[in-house]
C-alpha cells in the first residue's frame, strides 16, 4: 500500500515526505499557499501545531532540532520576514537534528500582499535551499532536505510556490526512516551566539556552504534534459516543466538545489550551447549569480519578473518577444460571504467616515466595493502601529478619526506588541482599536489560534488566551464587547464615544465566522474537515 502511486498536492507530498523522514514535530503558521502542509501532516498522524506566528514557530523548530531529532517548519513567503531574526542566526548555530523549513512563495500574488522571492533569503542568510518541480520531487526533496540538514548540521529551506503547493501530480512514495529519540547534549559554544562564539560560527557556516556547493556540482538534485548544442535553458521549479513543454528541442538544466548553486556545472552547461537563457519566475536570481561568475547568458526581459510564468510566456522569453502581453479578462473579485459579520461591521464603519488603518484577513476585502472603507494594509499587525503613528502627528480633528482594525487571528500573530506600544506611547487623543473577532483564522481556511482555545486538529487546549483580559492587563483603559450583527447600534455608540474621548479603547466585535460554524458542525458529526 505505502509504495502505491497516488495523486497528491505538493503540500500533501511535503507532509508525506516529513512523515517518512521520521519528523518528530511539525510547526508553523497558516498562510496561503502553505497551510495544508501541516494539516495533512496532522492527518497522517504527525504531531503538528500552529504557533502564534512564524517567528515563534521557527524558534520552536530550532528547539526541536537542538535535541537531535527532526522538525518541519512551514510558512508562506512573507512569514519568513517575521521569522527572519532567528532564521539568520540559526544559520550560525546550526542544528543537530534535521530541520526543514518549507516556505511557499506566491508569484502573481494569488493571495498575498507582495511577490517577494525567497531565494534571496537563502543567499542572504547562507541557508541551503532546494526547490521541487512537482509533487514527486516535493516528497523526495523533503526527505533529502532532512538528510542534508543532518549531514552538514544546518537547516535547509524547501522553496515551494503556489503551483507546487496547490497542484496535484502523481507521487510514488519510497521507504520510511526512523530517527533517534530526542536527547539533549550540551554544546554551549555552538548554541550561544555571543560575539566570541559567533565569529568562528560565521566562518564555519561559509565552509559548510563551500562544501555543499561542491556536493551540488557533482551529486546535487539537478537534471539535464536534451542534447541540443544550440539553445540551452537554465531553469528551476515548476517553471522547468513549462520550459520542457514550451521548448522541447532545447537542452534544459533544471536546478533542484538553488543555494548554493552548482556554479561549476552551470558554467559548463553554458559553454556547451551556442545561446543560453535563464528562465525563472520572480527575481533574476540564478541569472544574476551566473553572470557574476562570468557566465554568458541572454538576459531576461524585465516584464517577465512580474507575475507567474506559464508555457505561453516561456515561449515568448525563448523567442525574445518583448511586445505587450494580452491582458486576460478579469473574473469576479472575491468578496465577503453573504451573512459575514465583517460586513455588518464595515457597513457601520463606512458611515462614520473614519481613517481606518487595516490589517490582513478576510476583512481586508472591505477595501473593495461596496465598502471601500480601509485606508491602509501593509503587513500582519501593522494596523495598530500605523494608526498610532498617524494619531501622533495628524491635526486633532483628523487624529480623532483614526481607527485601527484587526482580526482575532492577526491580533494573536502580531497585535500584542502593538497594544504594548499603544499603552507605552499613548497619543494625546488616545486611540481606538477594533478587533473583529470571528473566532478563527478565516482567510487561510479556518485555522485555530491561541484565542480559539483549540489546537490544530480542532480539539480543545483547555485554556483560551482571552482578547479582553489581555488588553486590560496590558493597560488599555476600557474594553467594550459587542455583537456586530445583533448589536450594531451599541457597536456604533462604542466607537463614536471612544473617538470623542482621549481614552485607549478596544472594541471587540465578536461573532463567529459563518464558515467556521458550518465546519465545526461537520467536525462534531465526525465528518471529514480540512
Amino acid at each position, binding site marked *: 500500500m505505502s509504495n502505491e502511486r497516488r*495523486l497528491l498536492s505538493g503540500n500533501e507530498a511535503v507532509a508525506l515526505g516529513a512523515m517518512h523522514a521520521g519528523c518528530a514535530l511539525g510547526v508553523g503558521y497558516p498562510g*496561503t*499557499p502553505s497551510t495544508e502542509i501541516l494539516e495533512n501532516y496532522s492527518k497522517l498522524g504527525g504531531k503538528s501545531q500552529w504557533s502564534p506566528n512564524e517567528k515563534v514557530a521557527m524558534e520552536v523548530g530550532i528547539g526541536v532540532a537542538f535535541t537531535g531529532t527532526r522538525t518541519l517548519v512551514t510558512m508562506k513567503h512573507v512569514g519568513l520576514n517575521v521569522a527572519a531574526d532567528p532564521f539568520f542566526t540559526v544559520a550560525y548555530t546550526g542544528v543537530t537534528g534535521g530541520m526543514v523549513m518549507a516556505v511557499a512563495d506566491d508569484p502573481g500574488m*494569488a*493571495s498575498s500582499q507582495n511577490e517577494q522571492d525567497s531565494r534571496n533569503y537563502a543567499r542572504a542568510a547562507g541557508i541551503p535551499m532546494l526547490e521541487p518541480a*512537482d509533487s514527486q520531487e516535493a516528497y523526495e526533496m523533503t526527505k533529502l532536505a532532512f538528510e542534508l540538514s543532518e549531514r552538514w548540521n544546518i537547516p535547509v529551506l524547501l522553496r515551494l510556490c*503556489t*503551483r507546487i503547493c*496547490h*497542484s*496535484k*501530480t*502523481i507521487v510514488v512514495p519510497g521507504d520510511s526512516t526512523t530517527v533517534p529519540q530526542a536527547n539533549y547534549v550540551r554544546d554551549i559554544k555552538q548554541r550561544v551566539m555571543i560575539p566570541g562564539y559567533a565569529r568562528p560560527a560565521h566562518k564555519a557556516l561559509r565552509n559548510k556552504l563551500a562544501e555543499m556547493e561542491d556536493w551540488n556540482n557533482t551529486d546535487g538534485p539537478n537534471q539535464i534534459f536534451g542534447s541540443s548544442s544550440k539553445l540551452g535553458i537554465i531553469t528551476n521549479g*515548476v517553471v522547468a*516543466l*513549462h520550459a*520542457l*513543454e514550451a521548448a522541447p528541442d532545447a537542452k534544459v538544466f533544471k536546478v533542484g538545489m538553488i543555494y548554493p548553486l552548482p556554479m561549476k556545472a552551470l558554467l559548463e552547461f553554458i559553454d556547451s550551447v551556442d545561446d543560453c537563457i535563464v528562465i525563472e519566475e520572480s527575481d533574476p536570481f540564478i541569472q544574476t549569480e551566473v553572470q557574476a561568475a562570468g557566465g554568458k547568458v541572454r538576459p531576461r526581459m524585465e516584464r517577465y519578473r512580474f507575475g507567474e510564468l*506559464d*508555457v*505561453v510566456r516561456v515561449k515568448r522569453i525563448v523567442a525574445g518577444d518583448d511586445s505587450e502581453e494580452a491582458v*486576460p*479578462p*478579469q*473574473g*469576479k*473579485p*472575491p*468578496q*465577503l*460571504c453573504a451573512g459575514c459579520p465583517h460586513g455588518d461591521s464595515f457597513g457601520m464603519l463606512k458611515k462614520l467616515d473614519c481613517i481606518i488603518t487595516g490589517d490582513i484577513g*478576510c476583512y481586508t*476585502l472591505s477595501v473593495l466595493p461596496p465598502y471601500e472603507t480601509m485606508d491602509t494594509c501593509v503587513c500582519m499587525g501593522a494596523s495598530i502601529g500605523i494608526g498610532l503613528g498617524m494619531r501622533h502627528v495628524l491635526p486633532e480633528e483628523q487624529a480623532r478619526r483614526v481607527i485601527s482594525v484587526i482580526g482575532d487571528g492577526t491580533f494573536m500573530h502580531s497585535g500584542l506588541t502593538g497594544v504594548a506600544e499603544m499603552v507605552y506611547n499613548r497619543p494625546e487623543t488616545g486611540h481606538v482599536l477594533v478587533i473583529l473577532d470571528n473566532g478563527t483564522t478565516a*482567510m*487561510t*481556511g479556518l485555522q485555530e489560534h491561541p484565542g480559539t482555545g483549540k489546537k490544530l486538529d480542532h480539539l480543545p487546549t483547555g485554556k483560551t488566551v482571552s482578547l479582553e483580559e489581555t488588553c486590560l492587563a496590558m493597560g488599555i483603559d476600557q474594553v467594550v464587547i459587542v455583537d456586530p450583527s445583533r448589536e450594531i447600534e451599541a457597536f456604533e455608540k462604542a466607537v463614536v464615544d471612544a473617538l470623542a474621548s482621549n481614552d485607549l479603547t478596544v472594541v471587540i466585535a465578536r461573532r463567529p465566522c459563518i*464558515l467556521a460554524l458550518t465546519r465545526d458542525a461537520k467536525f462534531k458529526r465526525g*465528518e*471529514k474537515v480540512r
Partner: protein
Amino acid sequence: MNKVMNIKFAGLGGQGILTCTDILGRVVFDMGHDVKKAEVHGMSQRGGAITSDLRYGEKVMSPMIPVGEADFLIVLGEDQIEVNQHHLTADGIIVKPSDFEVDKLENKRMLNVALLGALSKHMDFSTEQWLNAVRAQLPERLHAANERAFALGRGE
C-alpha cells in the same frame, strides 16, 4: 503518441469546482494516466472567480493548461463563459448548465457533479468509472443524490 487532454473548470469559490476537478482527476488516475491538476484557491473561497486545470495523457509536463489549448471548458455559471473562452482550442467544447435540465436538479450544490455527467457524454469513460470516482471523493451520505445528479447531467 502523446496527446495531452486539457480540461478547464471555471466557477466561483464555494460552487464545488475543486471537488469536481478532483473527481475527474480520480477517473483518469484510476485508468493509469499521467495526470496533473492545477488550481488557485485561498481568498477565492469568498465567492471570487476561480479556475482549475486538469491535464492527462501518457506524459504531462506543465500543470497549467496553456492559453488556447483547453479541449473542454466546464463552467458552473453561464457568466463564466465570456471570461474563460479564450482558454479553448478552436474546436474546444463548452459544457454548461443549460446543456441539461438543470431546473430538475434536486440541490444546486450538486451542479458540479451534474456537469460531470454532461461532460461524460463527450468522453470515453464508462458510467461506472465516473461513479466510482464520485463515491471515492464524496462522503457516503451524499452518494445517492450525486449519482442522480450525474445521471441528470448525462441525460439519463
